[in-house]
């Protein structure tokens, strides 16, 4: 956990937060492209479990009231990898996986919001 904490803060100067025992939480800003707003995101991690990523500000938007945002868990957390695919394991640094994926997710989210198509591929579970 201390390594995760160190790598996140050392890699992304604008990320703040820390860890206590087996829990960590970090907040920072990600801007997927120069034309995008800077999104404030929060990463929560409990040792050995799947890290959770939330977008705090600006809030994510739906295209239509009844149309879900693709690739989210319960419309709250970003789904950045397929749990059993081996994309991610607790041995992987969050700084080199989850955070870049969050930026990528936000990029495809923006394109989805404007075009209605998710062009980042991925696996859906309806």
């Amino acid at each position, binding site marked *: 956990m201390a390594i995760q904490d160190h790598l996140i803060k050392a890699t992304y100067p604008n990320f703040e937060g820390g860890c206590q025992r087996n829990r960590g939480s970090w907040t920072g800003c990600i801007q997927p*492209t120069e034309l*995008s707003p800077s999104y404030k995101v929060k990463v929560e991690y409990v040792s050995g479990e799947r890290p959770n990523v939330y977008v705090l500000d600006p809030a994510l938007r739906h295209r239509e009231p009844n149309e879900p945002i693709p690739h989210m868990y*319960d419309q709250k957390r970003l789904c950045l990898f397929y749990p059993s*695919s081996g994309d991610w394991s607790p041995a992987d640094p969050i700084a080199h996986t989850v955070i870049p*994926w969050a930026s*990528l997710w936000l990029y495809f989210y923006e394109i989805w919001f404007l*075009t209605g198509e998710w062009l980042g*591929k*991925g696996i*859906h579970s309806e």
Partner: protein
Amino acid sequence: MTAVSQLEELLQRIGYKLDLTPTQHQLAEERYKSVGKWLQEAQGVIGGRNTEIYPQGSMRLGTTVKPVKREDREGKIFYQEQKEYDLDFVYELNLRPEENSPMAVLEALEKRLREHDGYKRMIERKKRCVRLVYSNEFHMDILPACSMSPHSTLIAIPDRERRAWLSSNPKGFASWFEGRAGQGKKEFLESIQPLPDHTYAKPPLVRVVQLLKRWRDHSFNKEMAPCSILLTTLAGYLFQGEIGILDALHSFTTRLKSEIGQSNRVLRVSNPTNPGEIFSEQWEKFPASYREFCVQVQSLGEQIDQLLKNPGLEKAQDIFKNLFGEASVKDALKDSALALQKLREEGRLRVDVKTGILGAAAVRSVAVKPNNFFGNEIL
């Protein structure tokens, strides 16, 4: 990539979507050459080996524009549907204009095309040419012409209404335009070099002309719309080697507004390679169309200014949609997302550590490892 270079990429991609596709382009090439061969094999004034068929206008300049579709004009009152690309060709004959009647040449051309089983069903007679319609793809306007002198590119072209030869200079015009578009070429090529894939990019002036034509198709009522050669010439005159499309569009509107503001009279635009040929004739005959043009240029300028002042993806989408139609922008956005997805699949995508910005070449960056977005889409 800076915000402006990202907008630049979008505009290049919008332009790319307006181009003939590579397949359509090849088809057009094959077809006009077949027409040329058919004409050359004819007997009499129209045939012979010393004749030549060649593209002129947008096909020659690389400024073809995909026809506007109904859905692109959603919410607009004025709407004209065009199904095909408009491609122009010159069939240059080995004749002296003073020894031949323009009407006889037009008739001979049409007669020869009617002798062909395929072409005879595709013919439409136009003011100065004969059109072959390839339904839903493109139509080819074949303009018969006679060289006026072996020492120049000037040609004589027939006009049905005036029953006379008029002078024109499509080859000269193309060289002039290429010269204008070639300004700043070195800087432009350097500017696109860092892009991972820039095969979709064309010189800014070429894209500016396409975008102006699409803006015209999208924003003007048919009777008011400035013709393509007029827009192309204006853009060529006003271009000063800007290395970006957005910058060039901005300069275009700024300089044009200043030209317009200098006089109460209608702006006069002549053929730079044939000064007697006035391209702005329509404005003189129909001043309301000139006033409409001035209003639209003002609005175009305001929208470009807004975008430069406050560049953002959503804003850009909004403005481009308004200027060029929803489908064009959507397609361009999709293309850029697919290009990024491709980088990702090739393992070339990186994330800038200071900002989280994605790209192929960030300096202080980490690689984006492979992943699959997952989710249970419950609202």
